[in-house]
């Protein structure tokens, strides 16, 4: 390599270093800005949170109790049997959405007593009724097994009687 080529290379390296240096300077400035802004942002965030928590407390809301309840609910919801069930529910909801979309395309005619009886022979209607009755049977059993839910039902019944 002759001297001229070496000089050109050195100039190129120097320019590259100057660009890197300028970029590093900009990064450093950004970090410094972030260092200054982060504590302020954190302070603002925590102040806002604590102000909201204080307002809730004044209204009689025990935030800690709510947090514990939410965690307990989350624990229940993430149980494997519950997630499996939720998966089924989502699947059924998807089918229901498809059925509603079908309704959009086909006009819905009014149906009398005779028409209702005739519809019972349709296999789709039969499957839906079967599903609804089976669901009602299982849900009823589950409610019976759950003391809290049973008490809730009794409360509703009492309220209706009143």
């Amino acid at each position, binding site marked *: 390599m002759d001297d001229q080529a070496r000089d050109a290379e050195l100039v190129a390296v120097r320019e590259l270093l100057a660009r890197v240096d300028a970029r590093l300077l900009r990064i450093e400035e950004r970090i410094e800005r972030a260092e200054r802004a982060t*504590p*302020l942002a*954190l*302070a603002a965030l*925590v*102040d806002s*949170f*604590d102000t909201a*928590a*204080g307002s809730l*407390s004044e209204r009689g809301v*025990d*935030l*800690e109790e709510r*947090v514990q309840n939410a965690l307990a609910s989350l624990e229940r919801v993430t149980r494997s049997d519950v997630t499996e069930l939720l998966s089924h529910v989502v699947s059924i909801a998807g089918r229901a959405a498809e059925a509603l979309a079908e309704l959009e395309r086909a006009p819905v005619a009014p149906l009398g007593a005779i028409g209702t009886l005739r519809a019972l022979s349709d296999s789709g209607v039969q499957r839906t009724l079967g599903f609804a009755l089976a669901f009602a049977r299982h849900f009823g059993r589950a409610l019976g097994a759950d003391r809290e839910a049973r008490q809730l039902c009794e409360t509703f019944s009492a309220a209706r009687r009143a």
Partner: protein
Amino acid sequence: MTQHTILIVGGGTGGLSVAARLRNLPDPPAVTLIEPSEFHDYQPLWTLVGAGVLDKQKTRRRQADYIPHGVKWLKTRAVAFEPEHRCVITEDGAHHTYEQLVVAVGIQLDWHKIEGLPGHIGEHGICSNYSYETVDSTRAALANFRGGNAVFTFPATPVKCAGAPQKIMYLADDVLRRAGVRERSRVIYAAAGGSIFGIPKYAKTLNAVVERRGIETSFRHNLVAVEPAARRAHFRHLDTGELKTLEFELLHVAPPQSAPDVVKQSALANADGWVEVHKHTLQHARFPDVFALGDASSLPTSRTGAAIRKQAPVLVANLLAFRAGQPLTASYDGYASCPLVTGFGKLVLAEFDYDGVAQESFPFDQSQERYSMYALKLHALPELYWNGMLRGRA
């Protein structure tokens, strides 16, 4: 006689923190720990246990699970220090010599210094959050309270966690309000100190809390005797010497406290019984191969776990420097912290140094009552303790 390199006496917060930090070193020295307890308690949560927020079992773990890897654990009790001979004697009669000694034996609860009290915690509305054995008595006393005087005491001695006597009072006030009995009761803070808190910045908030809650204060009054069956507590005024009697339905006792007798009876002690160490280096004033930290030390700061968190790295750095024959350059500035629970879901996070200057960790005003700081105490600090401090990481 058994020879040890570094001998640590006491496996509480201070002893375990130092042991873990030493063993985390790339080329760790041999460390032996003398500690008789089967269990290790996270005591800062006892306030919330007494108030019924938590079960006390959640504050206790097996000591064996927190002895750092590589540390030789002697499950026995130290009964004498002989620093002149570089020797510690244990209850089995064994003599243990050392190159360096770390004393971290904690603080002693002197229930017996209150006449009529021993044996009656848990009876007649008398309760205390100050030990694992008695902390449930507070929950029971609050549950059984139907009105009358609820009295909370603070002794005329240094105590561990100086905020604890008033924290349970604020929570108790909330409990009584929720139970609908606050209107027919008086909540009284009968304390040997002269004010609600030593640092003005936090005292301002706490005085407002006291006023808001309608709490009566009776400062400079030291509990000296109790008549459990008659439900009477006797206090002596520290300036006038006058006796004052308060009837109570609930009496929460913060017991008088002192350095453990094994320290008081040794040459390690200063005139007040504490291990006499330099307040910045944590090295003993007369025995340079002895270091101390935590509640048993003479360090003129609040006796809290947070203080130990800052003491442990300084002690380890200076101990290593001493072993290397170098000057001790690490310095402890007296940092201590007191998370002052001011009610359910509310906390003032006090942090300060030897000079009473606030040394706050967060960029907001920590003298305000905050739910975020309450959540920090309840959920984050225990994890920081078990997985950070005791592992020598924080």
